[in-house]
């Protein structure tokens, strides 16, 4: 997973200017895909484009090697604190799985 850091602000999405300090010099760093489940939900009622895969879990993952989070989709049910990692990138989404 690639992260972008400016001052104390770390994100997996690159901004034009840092939301904390306004700077525009970001350090790009490749970190492990491993993380722990910070929180989750199982979506039963989905928008039209995702209706065919509902219900599905959207999981907010806290990355182990960076002070930032990534929103993922996981097919298995999870609990807060579970160890997870990237399985694949599909249609622009990070598909994670339990370790």
């Amino acid at each position, binding site marked *: 997973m690639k992260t972008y850091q400016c001052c104390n602000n770390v994100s*997996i999405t690159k901004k034009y200017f840092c939301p904390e300090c306004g700077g525009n010099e970001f350090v790009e760093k490749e970190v492990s895909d491993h993380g722990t489940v910070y*929180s989750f939900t199982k979506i039963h*009622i*989905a928008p039209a484009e995702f209706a065919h895969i509902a219900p599905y879990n959207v999981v907010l993952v806290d990355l182990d090697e960076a002070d930032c*989070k990534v*929103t993922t989709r996981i097919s298995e049910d999870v609990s807060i604190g579970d160890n997870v990692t990237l399985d694949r990138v599909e249609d622009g989404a*990070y598909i994670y799985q339990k370790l």
Partner: protein
Amino acid sequence: MTETYIHGIGMTRFGTLPEFTMKQLLLDACSEAIIDAGRPKIDAVFVGNFLGGSISNQEILGAIVANDLGLGYIPSAKVEGACASGGIALRQGILGILSGEYDTVLVAGVEKMKHATTANVTQGINAAMDTNSNEKHAGLTFPGFFGVLANRYFYETGATKEHLARVALKNRENGVNNPLAQFQKPTSLEEIMNARMITDPLGLFDCSPMTDGAAAVVLSRKKSPIHIRSTAQVSGPTQMQDAQNLLSIPAIGESGRIAYEKAGVGPEDIDVVEIHDCFSMTEIIAIEELGFFSRLEGWKAVEEGRTKVTGDKPVNTSGGLLSRGHPIGATGIAQIYQLVRQLRGNAANQVNNPRLALAQNLGGTGSYSTVHILERV
């Protein structure tokens, strides 16, 4: 102090209204507000609306109002800020008066949603996310965001689904007494707890409904008994994964802080509140962010009944979005409608002699928030 005053209010019934077009709803609310204000000359029109283009194929709402109500060749505009469209439209009206350009402004909000399928409306609402993000591609939805937030809130505080249900029950009890509310049928904690799941842990009653409806207000620099003491708006993170603290929605807190500062009052001074309970979880976060209760303790206030009409901080006496209904662009104006009636002393669920009232309107997953503080003078 804005030295801007509310002179008239209007609101349609909220609910499933197949007999009315979006235009009719909008014009009904506007004409009611203009008549309530004593038919003043209107200098400009702002209309809050979100889905008119995508599911009703109808824009130019500002010009329609000006033309069909015979307001003359005056400036008008539609304002879009997702579910905060109404609150932001109101703020634009106030700023127009503060600038000196206008004396009297008509601000309205409208949405027509019930004619479309749930999947299509959900798809339309998802336009209020950052659509070119991995988060959107993962399938996150608005209820989904608040579901993720709720599960973490439970984990950190000990609150449970029953606390969410108590918010929904309180707002339904209020809706029962509001003749304009979408849901006026009593319910029970048991029915709420056992309703079908929308996005874990949020069930059907934890989520605001799709609604048809409109509301309008007339503002003026001329004095009236209802003074808009302050207006504030801020933007916040547009993605869940960028939240520094998932259990905080900084747009709500910061818009509240600015509104209090401009008004020269604090949360303890507010007598009656309408906040953006798009989901039961959101109401708990908002009462914390606005300083009515300590952070991570809003659920206790709900448990103790402090946000009921009979409590020390009555929240959503209209029934809120959960029971009054949530016609997206109209919601921010419908909040003002209820608070003006509270300050006039003729509201549904009237509280005892309120002087200061606060409205908070949220858009996106914390992308926009407005706060307005009203005062009876």
